Structure formats: C-alpha cells, structure tokens
C-alpha cells in the first residue's frame, strides 16, 4: 500500500466545472437515468466524507434499499466498480485502499459469476460474500448503536449532578500506642538507672583489649629491651586510678595474647613485682 499517506485525501476535489457540466448535460436522457446519474455524482462529490472503502460500500449498499441481510453482494461489487470507473473518468484520484478494494471486489465478482471450482483452496466466493455482508451489517449496527448511545440521557445534558457537592473533610487523628506495660517499664528503667547507667557513660574510662593490642603491636617493635608495662599505657591514662586500672588490665591481657602468638616475651621477677615485656628476638626472622 505504498503511496498512501494519511494526509492525502481519499479523493481529489472535483473541479466545479466538470461536475456542473456533467449534470447540465443530462438533457435527453430519461428521468430515471438522470436521477441515477445525479445520485452517483452526488456520491462522488461527497467522497471526502467517507471513511474508507467499507464506509463507501455501506452507503452504496443502502442505496439498494433492502435489508442489509438480503443485500446482493454481486450487485454491490458492481456498484462499487462503477463508482470507481466514474471517478476515474472524472479524473478523480482515488486513494490506494479504494483501489485495493476495487481489485478485491472485481475478483469476488468473477468468482461469484463463475461456477465454483472444486479444486480451489480457501474460502468459497459465497463465504467471502457472506463475510462482506456481515461486515457491512456489523458496521451499520455499530453506527446505530453509537447514535443511540449519544442520544441517551447524558450527564451534563439531560441528567445533572449535585451542583454544590459538600466536601468531605479529611481529618487525621493520631492514636498513641502506649500500654501500662510501657509505662511500668519506663519507670522501672528510671528507678534502676543508677545500677547500669555508669556503663553507658564509662566508655571514655575503659581501655579495651582491642585498643591495647593495637597499641602494643605498634610499640613492641621499638621495645628492643625489657620495658615496663606501665610504659605501654596510653598517655594520660596512668594518672587517674580508674583509667589506669582499665588500661593496665587491657595492656596485660594484650601482652598475653602477643606472647601466645610468639611475638613477645613477658618477665616478672616476683609476685606483684613490675611486669616487663620485650620483643621476642626470634620473631625477627
């Protein structure tokens, strides 16, 4: 279907002179032929209004003035082909889909006129004709349904909503979740606070074993000779009793760990005598 762009009208406009002249030269024909010709030409003049070949076919079918169920598809095909032929004579350029439809209908017409070929595959000409009739009837039915729909009592035309709807206020209410148990727990926590509160704030006075290990690993390399444990305590921790105790314990524990790893030797000359460390010489190798 090359060449069919949506912007192209299905038919080029008919020059005024051509149609007017055609109608004027109707003299001499009998009245029936004149009416038929005028009807056909008015179709052509209106062709811009068709929404494609099926729409045009439906209009032609209506001109048969029979129930769509009883439409003669053969006659319809002929009507369409005559229409296309006339359009050509009037130098009207038909859109591609009209020509495709014309070819299809010409094929259908020949099939309908010939005796059925028992060898032929696919649908019979009668099936094709029946389907076309069905499509026309269905399109017609949908058009009638559409106009019935639009003719209903529509909102804003026949039926109206409340002109001053009353707004629904949205309120947000907070429901606090607190049970007696929460209350009692909170109170219990407060009353026993002193029992465990110190731990919460004592971090600054606790020297952890991790910190001690870290510190000793860095320092031990420089301690070639026996060095007293107190020399390993971090700055400022030796003065305060609590901090000294914590740092001493952590440092001693760290020294045990390093000794276990074979990186350090520990010496204590007597019970409660000062403890001193040195790097284990073997660790060098």
């Amino acid at each position, binding site marked *: *279907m090359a060449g*069919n*762009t*949506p*912007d192209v*009208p299905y038919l080029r406009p008919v020059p005024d002179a051509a149609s007017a002249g055609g109608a004027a030269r109707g003299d001499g024909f009998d009245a029936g032929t004149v009416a038929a010709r005028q009807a056909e030409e008015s179709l052509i003049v*209106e062709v*811009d*209004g068709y*929404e*494609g*070949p*099926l*729409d045009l076919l439906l209009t032609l079918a209506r001109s048969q003035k029979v129930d769509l169920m009883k439409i003669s598809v053969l006659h319809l095909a002929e009507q369409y082909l005559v229409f296309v032929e006339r359009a050509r004579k009037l130098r009207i350029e038909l859109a*591609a*889909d009209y020509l*495709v*439809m014309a070819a*299809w209908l010409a094929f259908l017409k020949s099939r309908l006129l010939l005796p059925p070929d028992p060898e032929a595959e*696919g*649908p019979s000409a009668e*099936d*094709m004709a029946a*389907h*076309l009739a*069905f*499509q026309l*009837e*269905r*399109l017609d*039915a*949908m*058009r*009638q*349904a*559409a*106009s*019935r*729909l*639009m003719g*209903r*009592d*529509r*909102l*804003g*035309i*026949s*039926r*109206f*909503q*409340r*002109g001053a*709807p*009353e707004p*629904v206020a949205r309120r947000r209410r907070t429901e606090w979740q607190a049970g007696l148990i929460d209350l009692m727990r909170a109170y219990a926590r407060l009353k026993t606070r002193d029992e465990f509160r110190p731990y919460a704030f004592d971090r600054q006075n606790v020297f952890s074993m991790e910190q001690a290990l870290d510190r000793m690993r860095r320092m031990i390399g420089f301690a070639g000779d026996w060095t007293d444990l107190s020399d390993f305590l971090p700055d400022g921790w030796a003065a305060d009793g609590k901090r000294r105790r914590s740092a001493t314990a952590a440092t001693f524990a760290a020294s045990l760990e390093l000794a276990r790893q074979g990186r350090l030797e520990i010496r204590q000359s007597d019970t409660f005598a000062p403890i001193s460390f040195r790097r284990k010489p073997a660790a060098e190798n």
Partner: protein
Amino acid sequence: MPSPADTDDAVPRAPDFPPPPLDQQQRMVEAVLFASAQPLTVRDLAARLPAGCDPAEVLAGLRRHYQGRGVVLERVGDGYVFRTAPDLSFLMQTETVEQRRLSRAAVETLAIIAYHQPVTRAEIEEIRGVAVSRGTLDQLIEMEWVRMGRRRMTPGRPATFVVTEAFLDHFGLESARDLPGLSELRAAGLLDSRPPDDGMSLPVIPDGDDDDAIGHDGPADDLFDDD
C-alpha cells in the same frame, strides 16, 4: 460521636454499641450520597457510616423513596449516585455542560469498545474498516470513558480496551450489560468476534499515528454533532 467503621480492626468495637436503627441509617446514606457528585460504592458508604451499619440494606429503600422525584438515585456499576430526573433537563440550561465535540471516528470507536469489550485495536479496525488513530483512543481515555483492559493472551499480547464507570455514569447505564440493543445485537451474531479467514478480510490500510488528520475539518466531524 460514633466512630467510623473500621471492620478490619483487630480489636472488635464494643458490641454493646449497637448500630443506628435502619431509618437513621437511611438518612445517613442519603446524606452521604447527596453530598457527593461522584458515585459511591457500598464499601465507600460503609467506611463513612458508623460501625455495624449495612448500607446495602437501606439503599433499596432509599431508591424507592426517590422514585418519581425530581432527583433519583441511580446505580452506576458498583456505585450509587443522585442525579436529576432526565425528563427535567429542560429546566437545566444553566447547568448544561458544554460537551466536547467528538469526531465520528471517536463516537464509533467508543460504541465498538462498549459493545465488544474487551476489544483490541486490531478488532476495532476490522469492524470500522479503517485504521484507528492513536489520537482517537487517547481522547477517549483522556475523557475517562475508556481504559486499558487486560492484554489478550494471543500472539503479541495486544492490549484490550474497555469502558469505565465514568462512561456508564455519563450515559446513564447501570452496567455495560444495559447497553441499548445489546441482546438483539448478540442474538443477531453481530457481536461475535469472527476472525476473518485468509483472503476474506477487507483491506484495512495500516496507518501511522495520525489518521485523525483525515477529514478533520471535513464533514465527518459534523455528522455526530450533538443537536
């Protein structure tokens, strides 16, 4: 003040707090529906009414009460809404809403969707014999008369289109089953989806995006002009 129903509450509301008597419930449903411009479902109503109320039970009575009045209680899909009686439209020039002009293509497409739903775009094109422009469907969707339905479980899983509650409300239909002439059309086989066999289908020119451009200012637009 009675608290709103909160049926899913883990803690059941005090059962010694009985729901209001039925005539009071009817007043409440009446008030809530009257205040709203949009249809409300039974569930919407239940959420607004005190716990234990049964809006479904009082709706029928309310509907009877308004029968033949200037304002009637309409059912729209799952919802209920008050609307003025259609025969009094002549009094409503002031309120008449300027309707957006729908093209003939849009009106036909709407009817096809309503009567054939759920329907794919290809099926709409098959029925109309011309391509359906994106713009036509977009317009119907924007007007909230049409929405996407489920995808069809066929190759390509095409989207389907269905009509909405707003469509039902606009056209005064209780449900899509109440479309005029639906049963006759069905009996005549005109709503069957007959996939055309090869060689039988009429040519539909596949279209780009904007076949809406066709006959925009042509006569097609005017064909279905309201009044």
